[in-house]
């Protein structure tokens, strides 16, 4: 079984977000970067579990500059076999998806895994785009998955509930909480990761159709109004008359 896992780099969840002077770019200074949690905790670990159960290989793919290698090394330490990095600074989801799809086409993967969204752009787009370019089904928000031969049974999150579906490989899947349990790389994994190769390739040409032109901070919240705990009638009155939410 050949599995491809898409991993991206995002600012740490506690990162203080700021922008350059003209607000056109995210300020990376002093920011700790991590592997996008959905990619790491759920997509990658489930792929590794499938490989452990049925044999095969897990390949990581990242679209980004050389500084992303630290994230890729972590994925290799957790248990991926090899990795490819498409060397560029991507500006749109469609560009990223195009690069992944071009690589995946050659490889003939049984499944392509990605996280349900990145915690920076919150797009939820790349998996569906890759699937469309490959002409394969895309199963989003997977929280459980079992594989029987080439047929997968997958539980996925839908509005206010869950749906269980069946689909045959090959397909693209986006991973949500529940699909696997986070794994911490051990010493052996970290040592082995040092010897694994990262295959660095050039991107295929593709024009961006959408780009972020500027950033702004959300409007500041007004001061919190403290309410006397013995006067809940006052809170209810404020919610009704002032905030108008009940």
């Amino acid at each position, binding site marked *: 079984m050949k599995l491809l896992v898409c991993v991206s780099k995002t600012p740490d*969840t506690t*990162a203080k*977000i700021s*922008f350059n002077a003209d607000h056109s770019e995210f300020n990376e200074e002093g920011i700790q970067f991590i592997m996008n*949690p*959905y990619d790491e905790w759920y997509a990658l670990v489930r792929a590794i579990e499938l490989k452990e159960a049925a044999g095969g290989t897990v390949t990581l793919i990242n679209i980004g500059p050389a500084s992303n290698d630290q994230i890729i090394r972590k994925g290799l330490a957790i248990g991926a076999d090899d990795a490819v990095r498409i060397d560029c600074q991507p500006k749109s989801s*469609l560009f990223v998806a195009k690069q992944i799809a071009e690589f995946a086409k050659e490889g003939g993967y049984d499944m392509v895994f990605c996280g349900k969204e990145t*915690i920076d*752009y*919150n*797009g*939820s*787009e*790349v998996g*569906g785009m890759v*699937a*469309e370019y490959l002409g394969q*089904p*895309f199963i*989003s*928000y997977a929280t459980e998955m079992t594989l029987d031969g080439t047929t997968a*049974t997958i539980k996925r*999150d*839908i*509005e*206010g*509930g*869950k*749906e*269980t*579906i*069946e689909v045959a490989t090959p397909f693209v899947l986006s991973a949500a*909480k529940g699909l696997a349990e986070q794994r911490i790389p051990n010493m052996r994994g970290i040592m082995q990761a040092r010897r694994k190769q990262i295959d660095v390739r050039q991107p295929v040409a593709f024009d*961006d*159709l*959408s*780009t*972020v*032109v*500027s*950033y*702004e*901070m*959300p409007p500041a*919240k007004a001061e*919190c*109004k*403290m*309410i006397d*705990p013995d006067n*809940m*009638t006052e*809170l*209810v009155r*404020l*919610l*009704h008359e002032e*905030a108008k*939410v*009940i």
Partner: protein
Amino acid sequence: MSVLVFAESTGGALKKAAFEAVTYGYKTAQVLGTDCVALTLGEVENPGQLGTYGASKVLTASDLTLNDFDGQVYTDVIGQVAEQIGATVVILMHSSTGKSLVGRLSARLNAGSAPGVNTLPTNDGAFRVKKNVFSGKAIAQVEISSPVKVLSVMGNSFQPETVGAEVSAEGVSVNVPARKVTVKEVNRVKGTVPLPEAELVVSAGRGMKGPENWAIIEEMAEILGAATACSRPVADTHWRPHHEHVGQTGVAIRPNLYFAIGISGAIQHLAGVNNSKVIVVINKDPEAPFFKAADYGICADLFDVVPKLNQALKDFYSNN
């Protein structure tokens, strides 16, 4: 040239979010000087009502195989309709269905996209629209340069408006491709409001001490007609079901009113709820970071104050 809105339905019924999307589509069409066309897939009750919210035309592709979701099939059908009517903007809801389609459809139509928008686009020289990024910690302005654009609209960002009248829906002819995904089972939590769509949310954290104490939270949700939510450790320790987990790694919500009870307000929790219109925090620690993000705060023991609040709410609803 038109704006096409895919109006989602559940079990044949159109949802409020679909009306929001149609009103958004109507206003986008005004910005572009064109009209708004709504599309429903599968069997849907009374699709013509979408006219009320701003669709000048309602198209229905009512092939029975479209009753169950299949992203590949839906994308193809929406793509065909977009091409038939020459849509320049295709609008989806930013729901789990919409989010599963937005990327796929933009690849299908070779269209630039903006997922999860919460403002109307502007179109003076360039098509631009805003969306939240960094889990709500910032806002990005996205410029789309392709002739066709795909947007998904964040729920509860626009209210449905009655701007037109009912229209009679027209069937649209499309080729429905064979599906590759078989839906085996659908389980929706019954009787309660689904969290992502809820306008009122009552959420509680580790300050509750244990799952056996949740009755006061459930009572409050019932009085308000609210959905219940929880912090991550509460879901991780199985005090509450996983689908209630809100935050950066759980569900992101933007209700009109969010009660945070016994939740400290860690940055990852705030990331999923800081777009709520009004936040009420109940915490016994005056230093709890959540107070900084709150509109109203009560610094007290939740086990004392929540029963009092429930009584005050009951009194309010019996008089109003």
